[in-house]
């Protein structure tokens, strides 16, 4: 296979060939008519600002986005064909944008890698060897058991890289792999790539990056702007072509005139006026924050005078964000305190919040509001006077150049513009202090410079104090003072130049790296290892075995994730039991304690005898007698009395005269079932009364006897019918809601990229994810059955294997239903919502829980029968109390199996291996 890979150097050897590729999202052009050949066997880079189409281009090459128009050949195959994409999948590795976005945060380092190994059908032994090798090579070897979510950003990216390399790809696609990573980790990452490329010389790499200085090390570059490639060639070629010194300058001069913006020259920081007499804007005094045993911030102190730009540097997860949150009052420190302008900050203090503008690391504005609406909402909430709101919003829109996109939704905007919007929002109330948590992470250089000019203006012209964290060294150099943080402690504070001098380094970056290396334990650094080429020897493995391994990869991961969320596991297993307990006791159709009163207007021995009949049975609870018609109206109106025996005047006299007197029975019809039951009791009592009178008078009654036989439930106990029916309800709703988030969660967190970019098929993916839920739901079935048998004492008369088998099919169908909803929806919220709404109504009403399906009106019956519940209910009731075996339930089993299959097929059709 690898022999036919085109090699670098040879003429016409391209790893990817694009011609006339155009891609649109809605009406917006992401790529317009791109024609580009990416050389093989080398490190190829895509550079350009945010939102120019780099990610789209990479996703198209990786095959995770559907090609709209044009041609793309990757590894010599036309990837418009699905067969070609299938062939390519095991040879391509794709690492999407975002820190560890394709990793599962609750799984450990090793488990994550195991998962990827399995996705490529690797056997245990091969997997172990490869993981060992990769962990050694990346320096992750000391932490195989740490959950991926607890790794620092740099380590996450290393782990992502390991996952990408696990199958020895011929083409490695990296989308901004170092965005948001500290300089030391970034340097280590590229060194690692270099080492790996030395060992795997066949591998081609395509990287997108916004860091121009990183691009210097690439063999070949394509500069992109506005959906087009504006230049390509080696870095030297690009520089000499434009006569620029650095790539950054070269890039800017390659831009068309109108995109270049005014050349404002380098960003300069004018000197700060001397400190005033006022108290410092921010004082942190011995701040410490602990989360459980983990100390996130350890005894941090600093003072920031008013108007200063204070930079905050450090690797990911070192406590920067936590410290900043304590500055804003979002978090209460465990020890120490924050003072703003000399006043101690309290979480509940609304006044101080008006003085702070805060920008969190992730985009945290409302995506459902337009740019203008977001600004207006904040203007209102920050108590800007009503007459000044509109001018202020207009002013900010102009200041941050958001005028043109005021009506757009934030989600449709490139990251750089979104960050500008966040800053605009943070400054709308003209705060005295700005706290900005990595505001420029992922923003391209041009936009970053513009951003900084605004910051400097705010600081110097308006005296705003700015507390900013960043990964960019050139940004750190623009700060008045910076502090370096590592593992919760501040290592250095001072003016950038001062620190460089103190550390004896040439640049700030070196000083920083020097500082971090001094702190880092020896074993964390990567060790040189022998990268044996584990040639893909998969000939011995059948296609079926590989398919099963891939399916198992998802089952195993889903299971681990479920086990690591104990609350969910608890709800999934205990919820059904609690539901069964309350329903088993709570739903009963034995109508007791009906409130009853007499309204005796006759007051004769006969009327009293009749009234006594009614009060003699336990189903009626006697209430004080009714004395007047108004009393009757009032007491029935409040619902205090549900049934009233109204005996008119002259009852006794007429009865004695054989005149068939009338009695009135008032029944509260607000709840028909109760009314009917009350009525049937009352009729029985009146018959009894007639019999008694007849006996006294010696009249012969009718001689028909009624023999009533209660079949299947001689004792006529509600539980005997309700418990098996509740199993139907519970095993429908809980498994469905459990699996409803399975697929859509991957879509929301971005791990769906693994499904799109690896050889796993839709069926393997869906079945793999469904399997753990089926097992949990089936376990639930056994627990519920046992509870019904022994707690509620429901007899079990039928065939247990048959019920167990049908239940297994049933939970396959119900989890399948959840997964189907999950495949269609885009957010977990709507998946849960849709599953609940769609499943509850037919299951509760039309599946035989309360009303037998046979007694439903046609529409209800049809709706009921189009869900699996109505077919399962006869099976559970039948095997419990009717002595059913396989013969009676064959049809039901087949129909339920049909539902399971149907849901799977529909889910497969709803899933897409490629995004639009």
């Amino acid at each position, binding site marked *: 296979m690898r022999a036919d890979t085109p090699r670098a150097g040879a003429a016409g050897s391209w790893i990817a060939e694009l011609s006339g590729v155009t891609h649109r999202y809605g009406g917006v052009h992401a790529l317009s008519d791109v024609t580009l050949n990416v050389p093989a066997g080398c490190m190829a880079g895509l550079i350009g600002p945010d939102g120019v189409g780099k990610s789209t281009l990479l996703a198209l090459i990786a095959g995770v986005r559907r090609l709209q128009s044009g041609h793309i050949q990757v590894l010599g195959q036309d990837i418009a064909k699905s067969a070609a994409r299938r062939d390519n999948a095991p040879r391509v590795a794709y690492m999407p944008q975002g820190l560890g976005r394709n990793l599962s945060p609750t799984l450990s380092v090793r488990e994550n890698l195991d998962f990827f190994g399995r996705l490529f059908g690797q056997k245990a032994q091969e997997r172990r060897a490869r993981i060992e090798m990769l962990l050694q090579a990346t320096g992750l070897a000391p932490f195989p058991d740490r959950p991926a979510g607890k790794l620092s950003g740099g380590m996450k990216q290393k782990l992502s890289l390991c996952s990408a390399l696990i199958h020895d790809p011929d083409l490695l696609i990296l989308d901004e792999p170092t965005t948001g990573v500290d300089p030391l980790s970034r340097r280590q990452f590229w060194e690692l790539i270099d080492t790996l490329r030395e060992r795997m010389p066949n591998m081609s790499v395509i990287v997108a990056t916004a860091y121009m200085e990183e691009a210097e090390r690439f063999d070949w570059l394509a500069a992109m702007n506005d959906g087009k490639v504006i230049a390509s060639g080696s870095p030297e070629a690009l520089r000499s072509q434009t006569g620029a010194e650095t790539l950054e300058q070269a890039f800017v001069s390659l831009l068309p005139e109108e995109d270049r913006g005014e050349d404002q020259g380098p960003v300069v920081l004018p000197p700060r006026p001397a400190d005033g007499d006022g108290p410092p804007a921010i004082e942190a005094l011995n701040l410490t924050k602990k989360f459980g045993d983990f100390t996130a911030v350890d005894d941090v102190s600093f003072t920031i005078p008013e108007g200063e730009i204070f930079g905050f540097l450090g690797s990911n997860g070192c406590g920067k964000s936590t410290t900043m949150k304590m500055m804003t009052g979002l978090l209460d420190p465990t020890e120490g305190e924050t003072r703003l302008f000399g006043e101690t900050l309290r979480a509940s203090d609304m006044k101080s919040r008006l003085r702070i503008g805060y920008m969190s690391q992730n985009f945290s504005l409302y995506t459902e509001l337009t740019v203008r609406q977001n600004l207006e909402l904040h203007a209102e909430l920050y108590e800007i006077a009503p007459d000044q709101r509109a001018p202020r919003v207009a002013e900010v829109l102009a200041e941050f150049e958001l005028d043109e996109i005021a009506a757009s939704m934030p989600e449709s905007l490139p990251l750089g513009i979104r960050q500008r919007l966040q800053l605009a929002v943070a400054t709308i109330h003209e705060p005295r202090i700005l706290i900005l948590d990595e505001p420029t992470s992922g923003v391209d250089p041009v936009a970053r410079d513009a951003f900084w000019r605004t910051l400097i203006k705010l600081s110097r012209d308006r005296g705003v104090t700015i507390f900013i964290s960043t990964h960019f060294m050139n940004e750190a150099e623009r700060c008045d003072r910076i502090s370096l943080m590592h593992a919760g402690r501040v290592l250095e504070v001072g003016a950038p130049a001062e620190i460089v001098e103190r550390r004896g380094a040439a640049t700030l970056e070196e000083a920083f790296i020097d500082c971090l290396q001094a702190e880092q334990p020896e074993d964390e650094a990567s060790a040189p290892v022998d990268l044996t080429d584990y040639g893909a020897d998969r000939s011995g493995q059948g296609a079926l075995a590989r398919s099963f391994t891939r399916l198992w990869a998802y089952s195993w991961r889903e299971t681990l994730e479920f086990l690591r969320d104990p609350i969910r596991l608890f709800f999934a297993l205990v919820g059904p039991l609690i539901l069964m307990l309350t329903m088993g006791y709570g739903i009963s159709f034995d109508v007791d304690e009906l409130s009853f009163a007499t309204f005796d207007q006759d007051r004769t021995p006969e009327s009293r005898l009749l009234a006594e009949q009614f009060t003699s049975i336990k189903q009626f609870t006697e209430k004080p007698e009714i004395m007047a018609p108004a009393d009757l109206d009032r007491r029935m109106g409040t619902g205090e009395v549900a049934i009233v025996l109204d005996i008119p005047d002259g009852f006794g006299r007429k009865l004695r005269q054989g005149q068939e007197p009338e009695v009135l029975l008032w029944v509260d019809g607000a709840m028909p079932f109760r009314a009917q039951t009350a009525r049937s009791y009352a009729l029985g009592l009146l018959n009894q009364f007639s019999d008694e009178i007849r006996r006294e008078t010696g009249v012969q009654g009718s001689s*028909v006897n*009624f023999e009533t036989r209660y079949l299947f439930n001689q004792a006529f106990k509600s539980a005997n019918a309700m418990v098996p029916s509740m199993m139907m309800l519970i095993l429908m709703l809980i498994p469905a809601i459990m699996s409803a988030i399975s697929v859509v969660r991957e879509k929301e967190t971005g791990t769906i990229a693994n499904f799109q970019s690896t050889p796993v098929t839709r069926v393997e993916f869906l079945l793999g994810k469904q399997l753990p839920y089926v097992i949990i739901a089936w376990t639930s079935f056994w627990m519920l059955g046992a509870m019904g048998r022994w707690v509620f004492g429901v007899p079990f008369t039928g065939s247990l294997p048959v019920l167990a088998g049908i239940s297994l099919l049933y939970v396959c169908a119900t989890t399948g239903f959840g997964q189907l909803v999950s495949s269609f929806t885009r957010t977990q919220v709507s998946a849960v919502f849709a599953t609940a709404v769609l499943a509850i109504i037919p299951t509760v009403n039309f599946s035989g829980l309360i009303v037998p399906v046979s007694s439903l009106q046609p529409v209800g019956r049809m709706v009921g029968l189009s869900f699996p519940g109505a077919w399962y209910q006869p099976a559970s009731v039948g095997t419990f109390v009717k002595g059913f075996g396989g013969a009676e339930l064959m049809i039901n089993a087949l129909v339920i199996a049909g539902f399971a299959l149907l849901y799977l097929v529909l889910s497969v059709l709803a899933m897409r291996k490629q995004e639009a």
Partner: protein
Amino acid sequence: MMQSLFNTLRLTVKELRAIRGDKVMLVLILYVFTVATWMVSDAGSTEIRGLSVAVVDEDHSLLSFRLTEAIRGPLFSDPHVLSPKAAAEAQTNGEYVLVVSIPPKFEQDLRSGKDASLMVLIDATAVAQAGNGAAYMQQLLGDEVTKYFQPNDSGAALVDVVMRNRFNPNLTSKWFTSVMQLMNSVTILTLILAGSSLIREREHGTIEHVLVMPVRPHEIVFSKILASGIVILASSVASLLLVVQWAMGVPVAGSLLLYVCGAAIYVISVGSLGLLLASFTQNMGQFGLLVIPVIIVMFLLSGGITPMESMPAWLRLVMKVVSPSPHYVEFAQSVLYRGSGLSLVAGNMGAMAAMGAVFLAVVIARFRKVLAN
């Protein structure tokens, strides 16, 4: 104070926009309040209506024919006459709730003054209907036999019983199920809508942003409840008027204004409960698994499906203390059917409001602690 009110309203507008933006949710809300309400109300209920019956006639006499003829709607469906074997099989498969078996020589025996028995076989797994169904069947057949033998003698019954069903004269189930289904829809939608609005903010990180703004936790909480409350209340009232009253022809006896007030209290307390549940869960997966049992318990044990009286006393007490739904059912029955005034339902309204207040207090107390993590 004014500022606080304004903040709440502004955030409410924001929440409403978020709801408007979610098309899936809008479609589902529409579905629930129109199609689902109509379907459920129409399909059937616990009272006896169209009960499936089979007759095994081994007598083939005029009387047995008359008896078979007598079984008809609205209580029973038109009976199928089957052989004993077929009837037994069909009943086992759940096709008939009642099977009436008329033995050979039934009429002859009665004429000759012997005792004769009619057998009524009841599928007792249909607990909701079997008991009443059998009682009605006996009544019906007994009357029919009497009429057959003494066609002109009206003196068989000593007492003439006149049934008066108050508030729902024909015991039309639609009247009842439609309103109960509305309650069910309101419960499902409000719980999930309110709860997920909180979880979504946490998952998207926007809650952090809200917390640094000069807004207090209660303003955020109120705005979420208000927004989901307004949407659900408006659509449920629209559904009551358009679907229940107009399309299905269910008369509403009481004051609509009073009903809307009570429904508003219910929606607020259920919304608070939704937020409370959300504050105990970290993600949508947990929330979904927690909210489903809550919905089912609130609905099935509200007194809307089976009478509260038939629940064990302890469970009835628990439900009345922790769940607003039994109070809402009582309230809705009183106002919509009995036409009760405020004084009669004030207790229920108070109970719902008190529960809502407790839920709210807990949510607000937990808000910062839960969300800051």
